[in-house]
């Protein structure tokens, strides 16, 4: 960034300074307070030409896209849009504000200093939102002030004189509805103007306030609004009516429970046919590839390694899409804020907050979408705590392991009546165990490394709105891309490494018996460490292979014992029963309840926290906890207290 560091020299620059690179890119940043419709506008302007990443080293999401300019202008450079986090001010108190400041000042690595800004404000609440205009306009960059939710303003009887407002602020003003696409052409015109260098800057007619003084800034915004004949709209009647139901003392919690049960049921059982279908497609296509390729070690790598391994991850796609469809509807409609409000009291007892509830519930299906869903939590510490405890929730990948061991080692004697036996009790116990570990860890985190400086719980209640298909669709495509890209990179790599461990060293051109493979050697090598838990070297191999995904251990044990590798396999159960002590079996269940045996989760935590630090801490903590608890379990069962 060689050009123009502090824009003193180009305060009234007509053309934004060109970047030093050959092809000239015009960078436009979108900035606005939370709930101003910033992301909706970003989606409108970019469509599918966007990508999501994290700003380097922080948990703040970075969305960059190319504007769909129709190329009418003679100018050939493209317009790159940067979506900044929602902020009320530029005072750097949170990560979001720091990131916003850094990008606007051109100090963010990888992102050139913006040439122009789109300031988006909710015009149904212009008095408060205009406060952000003061620090933004003082940057003296070409800025379009976008008044969003024009349709709401009109239907609720509000008014604003945009020409007068533009006069006062010295910047063009566009009244639009990003959700409905009304007036968006004005935004495109502005970007074409700034990228062609035909937009001029006028100094604001009304003097900008001192930025640190919030009451003064608010008074300034009020004066500007009054000058532009702003009339605030009537309160949203439908939102009040709906809140009288959704926040009703009795109906509210009931609806909340129904919604939660619906989400849970859908991601857990509703996704099953889709997942089974996908599984069948992956298997059949794998067999087909096996059929057309000549037998070789590479066919084995391709089919048994890559195809089935990546397939095992992709199988979770329907579940992830369904969950994000639900979360999209809940968030866009405004209900998510109400659900968070209702759940907050309970969650606060565990040191968390209302917005952690939906992600944690989702983690019962799979920790990966749950961790991605924590993006709705604005408070970074609460979000991190939720990410760190989510993998303790009993995800569906643990079930095959639980089913196999419980069926093999726990007699199905009635425990509480005829329908609730020992086996069901054991399964329920494992769910409870994971939940207890999660809340204990949450309390531990919030009283130690994540002790926040008492950041108050603040939750804005947006008005209810109909979710748009467009926004839901873009969200699903975005999440699928993130998930599939990960399946294609980190996970692929781990799968290849595991396959190599299980199929090398080659003896006489044949892959070795699993006992003599590298994986087997590792199994033997770790046996002294896992012996106190009641595990032998075979379980050791299973644990190594289950790092790919928990359920993999079932198939691996099947291979080792030469039995059918499914959780319903009678042969495998019997083989395990004769090879493993009851103590070892129960310890294995406990180990799986706690250990972070899932590289997809590790990969998603790395992505969402912006580095390896947190996944490393989390993996170490969960493995340590799993080891110690499995050790204690084995010793207790062996000592025969329960027999």
């Amino acid at each position, binding site marked *: 960034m060689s050009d123009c560091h502090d824009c003193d020299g180009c305060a009234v620059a007509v053309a934004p300074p060109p970047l030093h690179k050959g092809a000239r890119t015009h960078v436009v940043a979108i900035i606005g307070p939370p709930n101003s419709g910033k992301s909706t506008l970003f989606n409108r302007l970019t469509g599918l030409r966007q990508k999501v990443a994290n700003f380097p080293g922080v948990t703040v999401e970075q969305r960059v896209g190319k504007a769909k300019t129709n190329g009418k202008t003679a100018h050939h450079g493209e317009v790159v849009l940067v979506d900044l986090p929602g902020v009320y001010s530029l005072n750097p108190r949170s990560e979001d504000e720091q990131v916003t400041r850094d990008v606007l000042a051109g100090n963010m690595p990888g992102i050139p200093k913006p040439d122009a800004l789109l300031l988006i404000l909710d015009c149904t609440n212009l008095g408060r939102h205009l406060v952000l205009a003061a620090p933004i306009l003082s940057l003296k960059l070409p800025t379009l002030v976008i008044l969003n939710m024009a349709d709401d303003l009109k239907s609720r009887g509000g008014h604003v004189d945009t020409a007068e407002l533009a006069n006062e602020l010295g910047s063009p003003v566009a009244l639009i509805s990003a959700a409905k696409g009304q007036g968006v052409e004005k935004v495109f015109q502005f970007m074409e103007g700034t990228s062609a260098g035909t937009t001029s800057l006028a100094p604001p007619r009304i003097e900008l306030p001192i930025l640190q003084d919030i009451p003064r800034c*608010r008074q300034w915004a009020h004066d500007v609004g009054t000058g532009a004949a702003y009339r605030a709209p009537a309160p949203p009647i439908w939102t009040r009516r709906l809140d009288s139901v959704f926040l009703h003392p009795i109906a509210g919690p009931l609806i909340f429970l129904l919604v939660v049960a619906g989400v849970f049921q859908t991601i857990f059982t509703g996704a099953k046919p889709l997942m089974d279908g996908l599984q069948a497609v992956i298997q059949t296509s794998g067999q087909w590839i096996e059929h057309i390729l000549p037998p070789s070690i590479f066919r084995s790598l391709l089919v048994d390694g890559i195809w089935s391994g990546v397939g095992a991850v992709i199988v979770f796609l329907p579940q992830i899409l369904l969950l994000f469809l639900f979360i999209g509807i809940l968030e866009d409609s405004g209900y998510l804020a109400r659900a968070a*409000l209702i759940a907050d009291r309970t969650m606060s007892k565990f040191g968390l907050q209302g917005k952690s509830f939906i992600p944690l519930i989702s983690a019962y299906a799979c920790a990966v979408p749950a961790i991605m869903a924590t993006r709705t939590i604005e408070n970074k510490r609460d979000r991190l705590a939720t990410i760190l405890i989510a993998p303790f929730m009993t995800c569906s990948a643990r079930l095959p392991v639980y089913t196999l061991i419980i069926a093999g080692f726990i007699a199905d004697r009635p425990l509480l009546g005829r329908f609730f036996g020992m086996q069901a009790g054991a399964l329920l116990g494992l769910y409870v165990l994971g939940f207890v570990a999660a809340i204990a860890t949450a309390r531990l985190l919030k009283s130690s490394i994540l002790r926040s400086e008492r950041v*108050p719980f603040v939750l804005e209640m947006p008005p209810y709105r109909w979710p748009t298909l467009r926004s839901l669709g873009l969200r699903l495509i975005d999440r699928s891309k993130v998930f599939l890209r990960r399946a294609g990179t980190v996970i692929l790599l781990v799968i290849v490494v595991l396959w190599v461990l299980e199929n090398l060293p080659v003896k006489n051109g044949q892959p070795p018996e699993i006992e003599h493979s590298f994986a087997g050697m590792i199994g033997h090598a770790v046996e002294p460490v896992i012996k106190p838990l009641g595990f032998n070297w075979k379980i050791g191999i299973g644990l190594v292979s289950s790092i790919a995904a928990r359920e993999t251990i079932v198939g691996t044990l099947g291979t080792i014992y030469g039995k059918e590798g499914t959780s319903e396999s009678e042969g495998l159960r019997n083989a395990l029963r004769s090879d493993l002590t009851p103590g070892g079996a129960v310890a294995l269940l406990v180990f799986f309840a706690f250990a972070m045996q899932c590289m997809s989760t590790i990969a998603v935590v790395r992505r969402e926290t912006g580095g390896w630090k947190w996944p490393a801490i989390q993996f170490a903590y969960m493995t340590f906890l799993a080891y110690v608890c499995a050790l204690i379990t084995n010793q207790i069962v062996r000592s025969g207290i329960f027999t």
Partner: protein
Amino acid sequence: MLQMSVNSGSSAVPNGAPARTLAQLPEGEAGVLDHLDLPDDIARRLMELGFLPGHIIVPARSAPGGEPRVYRVDGSEVALRRETASRLILRPSEESR
């Protein structure tokens, strides 16, 4: 609407009447914020959301159990926990003088 200059710095309550906090304000009754008894950082965050001295705040519905509660302030609705609302001190109401 904003009466900043009149009031800034009047944290003492006249007539020795106990200061009322936002948490004590009944649902649907309007109160005027006097000051925020919170560390500067947190106070600024709330001020950005409209909890400014001199602004009118109306408590609306709450979650079951009475908290957090939604407050109508400066054209929007914001939910706060009781621990936060009890640090927002209201001006003594007119009739109590």
